[in-house]
């Protein structure tokens, strides 16, 4: 279930982003708390800093470049994860949420049946088209990537990819009533050759 144990490129990139931000945060936390400690324990060490320099240094010079860098990196990463038109259109899979179950359909696999288990071809991106029938749910497979909400009246798309064949877990991440915690689902990623058989489609 862990996002820190990624099994796809989207989750992998986000995990990298997390670790970069984590270590950056540790450094900043230590810096701020260290300065606070100095002001009590060794006031002489920092007494020469002019009052306004605290505000300009700590409030502007330090955060602005960090935030700018982070924002640009996150924007580029986010663009990469988007389902963009053009190129080879990935396979589409429909995920349909209702209280409290998921149903999956495979419009690009002719002859396939609806399933409770989400079947994916491994090693290639797929676009999951997420909708809901009653209330808002959220489609989330932590080891493959971020989540997207399933909203009645709307259709949202998320592009995911599993690196290797295997079994993963999905979960509903938006509170949806009494059965919310029961609304998990199993994700099976198959070698591309095995995929059609798994969904009952003509090979």
């Amino acid at each position, binding site marked *: *279930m*862990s*996002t*820190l144990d990624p099994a796809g490129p989207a989750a992998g*990139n*986000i995990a990298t*982003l*997390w670790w970069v*931000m984590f270590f950056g945060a540790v450094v900043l*936390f230590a810096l*701020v*708390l260290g300065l*606070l400690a100095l*002001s*009590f324990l060794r*006031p002489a060490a920092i*007494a020469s*800093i002019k*009052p*306004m*320099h*605290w*505000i300009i*240094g*700590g*409030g*502007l010079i330090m955060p602005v470049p960090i*935030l700018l860098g982070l*924002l640009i990196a*996150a*924007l580029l*990463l*986010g663009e990469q994860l*988007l389902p963009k038109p053009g190129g080879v259109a990935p396979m589409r899979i429909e995920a349909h949420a209702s209280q409290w179950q998921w149903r999956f359909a495979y419009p690009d696999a002719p002859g396939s049946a609806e399933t409770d288990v989400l079947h994916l071809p491994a090693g290639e991106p797929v676009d999951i088209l997420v909708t809901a029938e*009653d*209330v*808002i749910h*959220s489609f*989330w497979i*932590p080891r493959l*990537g*971020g*989540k*997207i*909400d399933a*909203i*009645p*009246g*709307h259709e949202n798309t998320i592009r995911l990819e599993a690196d290797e064949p295997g079994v993963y*877990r999905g*979960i*509903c*991440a*938006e*509170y*949806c*009533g*009494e059965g*919310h*915690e029961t609304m998990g689902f199993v994700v099976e990623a198959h070698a591309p050759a095995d995929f059609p058989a798994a969904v009952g489609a003509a090979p």
Partner: protein
Amino acid sequence: MSPKPTSPIALHKALEKIWGTPSGWGRLSAVNHNILGKRFMVLALVFFAIGGILAMLIRAQLATPNSAFVGPELYNQIFTMHGTVMMFLFAIPMFEGLAMYMLPKLLGARDLAFPRIAAYGFWCYLFGGTILIVAMLAGYAPNAGWFMYTPLSSGTYTPGINADVWLLGITFVEISAVTAAIELIVTILKMRAPGMSLTRMPIFGWYMLVTAGMMLIGFPPLILGSMLLEMERAFDLPFFDPTRGGDPLLWQHLFWLFGHPEVYIIFLPAAGVLSTMIPTFARRPLVGYNAIIVAIVAMAFLSFGLWVHHMFTVGIPHLALAFFSAASALVAIPTAVQIFAWIGTLASGRPKFDIPMLYVVGFFIVFVCGGLTGVMLAMVPFNSQAHDTYFVVAHLHYVLVGGFVFPMLAALYYWLPHVTGRRSVYSLSVPAFWLILVGFNLTFFLMHLTGLMGMPRRISTYPSNWGWDWLNLLSSVGGFLMTMGFALVLIDIIMQFRFGRRTSRNPWKARTLEWAMPTPAPSYNFAAIPEIAGRADDLDVNVLGRDLAGGKGYLGFTRADRQETLGVDMMSGEPDQVIILPQPTYLPLWTALATGAFFLGLLFKLYWLPPIAAVVVIVLFFLWTRPLGARRNMGPIDIGMGKAVPVDGEVRDNVTWWATLCGITADTTLYGSLLFGALYLALIAPGWTDPAPPLDWLPAIGLVTALAAMALLRRAEVLNAGNRSPLPLLLAALGLGAITALALLAGMLRIPDPTSHANLSLRFVLLTYCAVHAGVAALLALHAALRYRAGFVSAVRATDIRITRAWTDYAALAQLPAWAILLLLAGGAR
């Protein structure tokens, strides 16, 4: 009349006789800010305890996997109520109470601008909160989450009374938030000590001015959203139903348009407390007073531009998200400015340590951590993983407990001696702090990891094979440690009242005005109001306090048993009026009870009751103004220090006028949210169908009559200024207002089946809004006419006519955008 020399004791007795509150049942008539501020805070602490017990139930349930302690049905009520109680019934009223108690003292006033409105707000808070708690004890607590997302919270998926309890109870409580906001803004702008220009105001005044301004425009979107959702639930008018032209996302926009500023509304007062305390303990003035003012104003602006970061996963285009992501990250800059101003103050001062400073250090540890995770969550890709997981639970508790509870505990230890006149009992204070700090971090630090390991929020139980077991168990242990810490704080407070050493007047050697008075504070605050010659956070309060007690200053005497305090020019702080405040009265209590009957009627679907209750509320409000004002012009009266100014009723720039403008501002925001909602649905809702049935032109009569009433009132104001009777024109405006309301009402009733589609339900609600405003304009015209007849209105005492004119203008002009939208809705928006 000139001030007679008198002894401090005699002056105290004379003032206490005028400003005091009766004992026994008479306490229910209290309007004094000392009493109301404390009542707000004590009640907020009661709700904090209730919210804390709910949190303990959550942690007990989640301590072990596959737990069967409470089932999902009860668990959903518990977490919904935990969030609701902590946000609406603890945090907001807590700082409102603190501000009510503290602001007049910091600013140099004897009370707030509208003591009876403060009392009314308190009763609304008590009754609204009681509705929620009683519903919970009866097993009908709201269970759709404190965020109440539609369609889950709609009648289809949450039948029963639970969600109505939330919508009506919270809206009832919100009345007190909006009235408090108006009260605080007007008090800060108009009721400072003479000489205290805005640039000399103590920094807490600035924080509260910005906070109250944010409340004024932050709460109306939620109030509107709650009204729309309640109309959808009660009368089946679709606004959020995607099958009938509504959109569930509209609720999320309205909710977070309130919900995000709300976080800063909670943080800023706490930051104001820190900016007030830290200089005392650093023994030097605050570093970067001006930079901090710029920072908090910037924070306020940014906070209204980043609500969408709660909605990163709803499917909004990525580039639009980038804008909100940047705004969310930018908020780190004004936050960092304040953090470093505080560190700079300590570093360049000679800091000393005491119990409040322990909590200040606790604040730094916890809040900095919460701020850093906040920047992480502002990054869209990371957010898509962490959203709705325990990572966010950890983040929000770091921000809210770090940014509010720790500073409030610091404030408690800092200002409790002001209330008790005693010092802390240190042997309990220190272990309590450590239990809270360690318990908090044990509970919530681990939740970051729990969330990253994939645990979503709001699940009542979890299987044991996903590695979440030990994390949850340790979080629960930490939660109970923290609870023990809070229990010790409670015992510590009781001990201080019973056993604390009596303290001198200014135990911390602070340099702000609230310490320039005896402790516990007298009901009138200052025996005389000081002249402020420099920054008001750097005063020699010990000398000043003695002078004021002796009556050296403004209004250092009593006159005609009136509760007198000073009003000043907003910018310069020059005294420009004597404000005469009302005496204790039961009217706020009765009005709040009638308001409560209105909400209970809606809640239990007894639809005969709300109209009766509304009439009672209106009649009672007519009675409110009876003790105010005068039947003759008094001209300038002596205020001591060789100056004389008129009473408030005889100046144009008085508190009632400013409160009216604030009220109209809040109303405009509510209306703006409604217009936004209408445009949003017409342009974006997925199931929208154009065109609708053609527009009915009958209610357009109401536009013509409203504009005519507007013209009449302008003429009435001119006549009154020229000492000629405005009475016929006021009565004509009353008639026109009634015709306007009736025409719009007829328009509402003639809509064919407004429940069929959002297009028609929007038409219905736009006409309702305009009809209600026309009706209120008519009532105000009636009120002004009665006041004129009774002799309270003259050419200089014209406030009643001016506020009627302002409201009538608004009610008429508000119809213009309504008609534009009605045309758009009828003509086909797409």
